[in-house]
């Protein structure tokens, strides 16, 4: 009972944060709401997860939840990697723009003799 209450309170806390942030991340608000709601439901009705697990060929409800958690984590990590790559591309673009605006010329014997402003 204590564990169920602690986990439920934790998930409710996360739910509160998700609701507060819903305007910033509208696209994932509903999926987040769904996952948290399912999580709270399964905490109080664990037999349901066992029932579903047996239907899909997994031994225990806890195992099913663990497998789902692993898959979700991998997807999250890949998503974060992609976001980081995009951020890196923005930084590269900015850094390059600064470099191209301020070339320094060692001598004037070349075709691109430009003077620094």
């Amino acid at each position, binding site marked *: 009972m204590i564990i169920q209450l602690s986990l439920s309170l934790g998930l409710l806390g996360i739910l509160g944060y998700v609701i507060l942030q819903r305007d910033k991340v509208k696209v994932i608000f509903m999926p987040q709401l769904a996952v948290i709601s399912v999580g709270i439901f399964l905490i109080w009705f664990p037999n349901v997860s066992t029932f579903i697990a047996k239907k899909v060929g997994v031994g225990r409800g806890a195992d099913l939840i663990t497998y789902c958690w692993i898959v979700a984590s991998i997807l999250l990590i890949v998503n974060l990697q992609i976001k980081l790559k995009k951020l890196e591309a923005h930084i590269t673009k900015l*850094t*390059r723009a600064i*470099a191209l605006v301020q070339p*320094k010329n060692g001598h004037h014997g070349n*075709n691109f003799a430009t003077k620094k402003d």
Partner: protein
Amino acid sequence: MIKQDIEKTYIIIPAYNEASVITTVVNTVMKHFNNVIIVDDASTDKTAHLALEAGAIVLHHEINLGQGAALQTGFDYVTQKTSDCYIVTFDADDQHRIDDAIELLTILKQTNADIVLGSRFTGQAINIPSSRRILLKLCSYYTQRILKIQLTDCHNGLRVMTGKTASKLCLQQNGMAHASEIIDKISRLNLKYAEAPVVINYTEYSKSKGQSFWNGFFIVRNLLLQRIIN
């Protein structure tokens, strides 16, 4: 080489903390070419200052991005002004010979190719570490079998290309994966390519600056991520 070819050839040298060799490299290149562009990738030593003193044009990255990003900055600098030119990519660690660059340029003109790449395996790889040889051979195997591009050396920094080719490459890989990206682009853009022997001299200094064997895995990861994003 005729004077007009020299006038419209731009040597792009990405550099990161190469203060001990950059003056030698720039001086050597400038004996044959006027347009030497050092892309200083946020070096923490005097690379940029020494390159400037030696007479090069210096483009400075405020943040260290990687060799691929530095090359693309160099490409953008040149192709913003003209695409009727030749571009040579040349390493800053004194591994390459300028005579090889001249030879590659001659081959580019004779074959009317879009890009000519150097190969240390049809040329010479002096003191190459065995782990590096294995990694490069694996890369060549992938290039030949999967990309169907017949190259014996897929990660050689010495290349010559037309300005039009450089303007098409649009490198997105900032790090060492750019070399694989260039080959991928040769395949996708159906560019006319050739390969020619070059000499790479692995000094203790250049070996200390080179890639580790395990970097190959990060290169593959970066290329896969880029495919997903694209």
